[in-house]
């Protein structure tokens, strides 16, 4: 996988959508992602009092279906860099909105969950950068991918159990993400491969 594909953090659902629906579509990765994100962006900007959990869940469904269909393509292009940050922004935004819609008292749990996701996402970047290795596919699938997480979160929100669900996710996923990462680094330190470093453009004046 290319780094940009790793940064997407697709789960099994998006991967399947990409293979089936996506293969039949002619639209590129970036247009599909932007198109899929549009309803959710509107929902995020919509006032909380005028938004229902059902409407937010519908916007999430559109995102997963349309942006998920763009999964699995390694399209090089001038705008290929746009996709990962868009997916991150709408994913994190959707979690905040869903918690705010259902029970705002769970916002500290939402923060902790976002911090865990952030660890997961930064970890993939730093490992590609320094180890030149991507995290194994099973970790990405264990995390459900952005698509799986959002579908489960929407379902839990509709059932009124998002807050406790986030707590369970932190307890289950936290040790998996952190332990797997630490083990990979210990293995890397013991291995003979040299570390690579992010190249920086330095002026020496």
């Amino acid at each position, binding site marked *: 996988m*290319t*780094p*940009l594909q790793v*940064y997407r953090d697709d789960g099994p659902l998006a991967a399947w959508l990409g293979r089936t629906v996506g293969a039949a579509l002619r639209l590129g990765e970036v247009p599909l992602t932007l198109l899929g994100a549009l309803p959710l962006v509107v929902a995020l900007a919509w006032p909380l009092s005028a938004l229902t959990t059902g409407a937010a869940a519908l916007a999430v469904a559109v995102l997963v279906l349309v942006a998920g269909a763009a999964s699995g393509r390694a399209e*090089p292009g*001038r*705008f*290929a*860099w*746009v*996709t*990962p*940050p868009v997916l*991150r*922004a709408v994913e*994190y*935004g959707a*979690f*905040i909105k869903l*918690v*705010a819609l259902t029970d*705002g008292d769970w*916002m*500290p749990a*939402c*923060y*902790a969950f*976002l*911090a865990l*996701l*952030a*660890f997961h*996402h*930064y*970890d993939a*970047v*730093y*490992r590609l950068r*320094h180890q030149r290795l991507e995290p194994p596919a099973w970790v990405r699938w264990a995390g459900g991918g952005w698509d799986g997480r959002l579908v489960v979160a929407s379902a839990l929100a509709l059932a009124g159990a998002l807050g406790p669900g986030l707590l369970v996710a932190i307890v289950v996923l936290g040790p998996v993400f952190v332990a797997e990462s630490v083990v990979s*680094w210990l293995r*890397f*330190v013991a291995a003979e491969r*040299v*570390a*690579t*470093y*992010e*190249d*920086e*453009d*330095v*002026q*020496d*004046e």
Partner: protein
Amino acid sequence: MSIAAHSGRPAAVDRAPGARRRAAAWAGASALLYATTADAGGGPAALLRLDAEGTTILGRLLGQLADLGVRRVWIVTRPAWADAVGREAAGAPQPADVIVAADIADDLRATADVAGRASDRLIVGRSDVLAHREALAGLLADPRVTTGVLATTSGRRGRWAYRTRSARGRMLSASSPFHSIRRPSHFFLGFLKVDRRDLATLEEAAGRLAELADGPGRARFEEELARKVVVWRRRRWQLARAAQTGLWPDPEEIPLDPPLDPADEADVAERLRATRDDAGAMLVVGLVRSGVHVSSSYLRNFFYARPRSPEELAEAQAELAALDEDAVLLDAAVKGADGFFTTYFVSPYSKYIARFAARRGWTPNVVTTISMAIGAGATAAFAIGSRAGLIAGAVLLQAAFTMDCVDGQLARYTRQFSKLGAWLDSIFDRGKEYLVYAGLAIGSTRGFGVDVWTLACAAIALQTARHMVDFSYAAGRHEAIAALPLRDLAEPDERDGPPAAAAETEAEAQAAEGELPGPAERAEPPEPERRGLRGIAAAGVRFITRLEKRPATRWAKRIVALPIGERFALISITAALFTPRTTFIALLAWGGFAACYSVGGRVMRSVAR
């Protein structure tokens, strides 16, 4: 010590002196030095004498290389200088053999031969260089550079050096006596480090390059060199004319073979003598065009000179003696392109903490961990939820950030780059910041009765997305650069289509030399006209690029992007003076603006591309 006789081809490298200690000699780094340029008097520039005892530039360099762990040296020189260079090699601290070569084609064949024998990293360099040990150490001892060159952007240090173009830390193009370049950005300072894994590529490229400069290719080689001389002469004429009339002459006005005054004429001749046998530059072209990832180690403010006469040597020695190498090293440990707050409010004193830590023998990872611990302390203080807690948290956060700068500076100062270090630094940086957000949110609820968790969530989402923009954009550029087609070694001209006539190389010459920039409107080669959206975007990119040229606008641009130093300062100031709510609103407002700015700029660049 033995001198291999020259017999058309470079004679086989004589391994007699090394045979006894082969295991030790072959295990470490080895070096191949070219003592092939003549000084102003016609002797080898490498053997100019530094002092009354007769230490030569080459002798000093051999000592420096031995000190940096180079266990084996080959010195390539011309037949007439073989005896003198041989005496120098006999006194070298490491086994050193002399290879006699008649011309640049021989030099390159000798290089292929040595590359085929070396089993670990190989340094290829010039032997007429007077430089700080640390300048060479930056290339040799820095594990971050696997295959790379010593480079500078300074026209003074890079006098007559062949130029290269780099983007995102990777060399894209290089020039040599045979190859020309467009839009150069750096000077290649003659030292090249080749990783073990790239030695086979070096061997093959050197062999092919030798063919370019030999036999039937020789005429074409001389033709390209002659074309370069024309560009230099026309440039000299242009500069002299501009100095005389105060007006910058149009490229069309410059004669194809302009008359030069004797001083300029001598200067061009001297330049040709100093650069015509630059086999190192040929090798850099060879590696880049073979798809090798060539990175750069920067000279920074270290001393580097290629004296061409006893007078120039005396001048260079005086300048070298006036420089405090440790102070320069400490300055060089400060990251080159950093934020405004970090550069002006933290690094000026944090580097002394780094030196203190170095003298105590602390490792960067220890400092990183201390920084994280102080960050956790700041979080606890913020979480108390009182004014005193906020002020204490603000102070502790600044202390943590200082230590954060110290770890990198310590690593660069002592060249301790551990595998774990970069990751620990990155993860703890993010960890500290997001922990502090949580501390502020807890403190706000406890002490001020305001629930700001939603704002905290928005802040972490925004910051992570902002970083993701940076990471993804960089990954996209790396992908695009790696996908660039490789040019053949036999192609002298970098541009597409037939080789350009001398008159057409003027834009290149202007961009290439840059020793004396002309009037502003002449400084940039004309851009191809673009229409519609692309044209608008290209104009926008030009505008942004122009902002980079003035310090004031360059700093403004960096401050707007809200880098980590500014972010931590913003958190400290707003938290100490106001409430956590204000801190989050400030972070979201400024960060949101920064996100729009950076995404907008990059979209524009992508459209223009």
